[in-house]
C-alpha cells in the first residue's frame, strides 16, 4: 500500500480507490498537545488544497487541507473522545478521514517517504 506525503505534513495511504489521510509525526510534534479535531462532514466534496479539518492544540488552531480532491467517505470516530490519539499515534490510529480519489494525477505530484524525510530534515 503506497503512502504519500504533502509539504503541508499530511500523509495519504491509498488502498483500492480510497485514500486515508492524517498528519505526520513531525506535524503533531510541532502542534503540541492536541485537544480537539474538527473533522469534515461525510459526503462533503473537497478540492485539493481547501480546508478539510481543523486541529486545536492548547495553544492554537491549525487548518488541515485536503491533500487531493475527493469526497469524504468516513471520519475517524475515535478522535472525538480522544483527540490526543493524534499525538500518540499520528500515522496509524490517529488518522483523520478517508476520501475518494477524484484525480489520480494529483497523487503523482506528492512525495514518497524518502522525499518527505529529506523535506523535513531540511526544515
Amino acid at each position, binding site marked *: 500500500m503506497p503512502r504519500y506525503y504533502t509539504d503541508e505534513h*499530511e500523509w495519504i495511504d491509498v488502498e483500492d480507490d480510497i485514500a486515508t489521510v492524517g498528519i505526520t509525526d513531525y506535524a503533531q510534534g510541532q502542534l503540541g*498537545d492536541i485537544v480537539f479535531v474538527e473533522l469534515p462532514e461525510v459526503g462533503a466534496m473537497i478540492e485539493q488544497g481547501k480546508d478539510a479539518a481543523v486541529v486545536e492544540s492548547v*495553544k492554537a488552531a*491549525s487548518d488541515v487541507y485536503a491533500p487531493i480532491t475527493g469526497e469524504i467517505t468516513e471520519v475517524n470516530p475515535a478522535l472525538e473522545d480522544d483527540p490526543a490519539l493524534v499525538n500518540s499515534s499520528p500515522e496509524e490510529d490517529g488518522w483523520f478521514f478517508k476520501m475518494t480519489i477524484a484525480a489520480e494525477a494529483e497523487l503523482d505530484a506528492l512525495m514518497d517517504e524518502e522525499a518527505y524525510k529529506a523535506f523535513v530534515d531540511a526544515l
Partner: protein
Amino acid sequence: MSDHDTEEHLEDLPLDALPLDAWHRARGARMVPFAGYDMPIQYEGIIAEHNWTRTNAGLFDVSHMGQLLLSGPGLDAAVEAVLPIDLSTLKLGQQRYSLLLDEDGGVLDDLMVSRWPDALYLVVNGATKWDDIGTLREALPDAITLNHFDDRALLALQGPKAADALARHAQGEYPLSALTFMRFGRFTIAGHDVTIARAGYTGEDGFEISLPAEAAAEIADLLCAEPEVQPIGLGARDSLRLEAGLPLYGHDMTPETSPIEAGLIFGINKRRRAEGGFPGADRIIREINDGTTRKWVGLKIEGRLPAREGAEVFAGSDHIGAVTSGGFSPTLGAPIAMAYVANSHAAPGTALEVDVRGKRLAATVSPTPFVPHRYFRGS
C-alpha cells in the same frame, strides 16, 4: 497545515536573543518569536508543563520584560502624575500592580511598581517596553533618571513547591519565608546579588527573581537541579494565567479598553480615584461613578472545542461581545475564555453562545479565577 494563531509575530523585525537562549535550546525548547525575542514556547509539552507548575515548581524565563529604575528629586509626585498609584502607601519592600494609561484612559501597559531605597523599580511588558520608556521619558521631568536594566535577566519560579526549592539557594538578611505576596527583598544566590519578589502570573505561590544576565544560566541550572523544578515555556505560562483569570496586555486590555471595563479598578488606588490628576482620570472616575457598558468576564464553554481571541459572543441573535483570550484549561479539562460582554449579560451564570467557525458553542459566564489563586499571604 497553517497556523491561524492570532498572536502578533513580529516577523519583520530582527529577533534578539535572550540571555538564556542557548540554555533553552540545550534543554530541547521549541523557540518562537515573541515580543521581539526568540522565546521558548515549550520543552516537554504544554499540558505536562502546565500540570507540573500546578503541582511542583516551574522556572519561566521572562527576561523579555522591561526592568526600569526611576530615581531623582520629587520622584513620588512625578510618578503619581503618570500612574494612578498612591505612592504614600507603598512602603520599602512592597510591590504593587499599576497601569500606564493614555489621556483617554485607554491602557498602554500594565506593570509592577516596587519601592526601593530612594528609587522605584518597574517591571513592564516585553512587547511594550520601548514604547513605555518613551512614554515615561516624555511625561517625567528631566530631573528624574530612568535606567533600563537591559543587563539583567528575570526568572519566575512558580508553583506550590517554589518556596521550598528557592529557600535552599536564597541567602539574605532574613529568610525567604519572611516574604509574603507582593513583597520583595535583596538576596544572594550562589554569590550573585539578586532581588526576589513574591509574585507571579500563574495564580500559584511563587517568585520573580531579577539577576545579572551573566549569572542567568548558572542560577537557572542550580534551580532546575532541584527535584521540584522544571523549565516551563510560554505556552503553559499563557494557559496558567488564563486559568488564574489574569489579563494579558495587548489581548485582554489595549488602548481601546479602559481598566474599569477590565475589572482592574484595584490598579487605580483609592486616593487617586478621589483626587484624579493622572492620565485619563476624567474617564476613569466617570466610569467608576456611572459604570461601563461592557465588562470583562470569564466564560466556561461546553464541549472540547476552544474559543480563541476574536470569537464573537451572542445572547440569542444579539451580538453582545467578543473573546479576548481563550484556550483549553488543562486543570479543568475543558475550554475556558475571557470576553468583553454587554453589562446586561455579564452576571455569573448567564447562558451565552460563542461562534467558532460558524458553530455556536454553549457558554456560561463564570466567576474568575477559574482555578483558585494560592498566593502566600503569611502563615
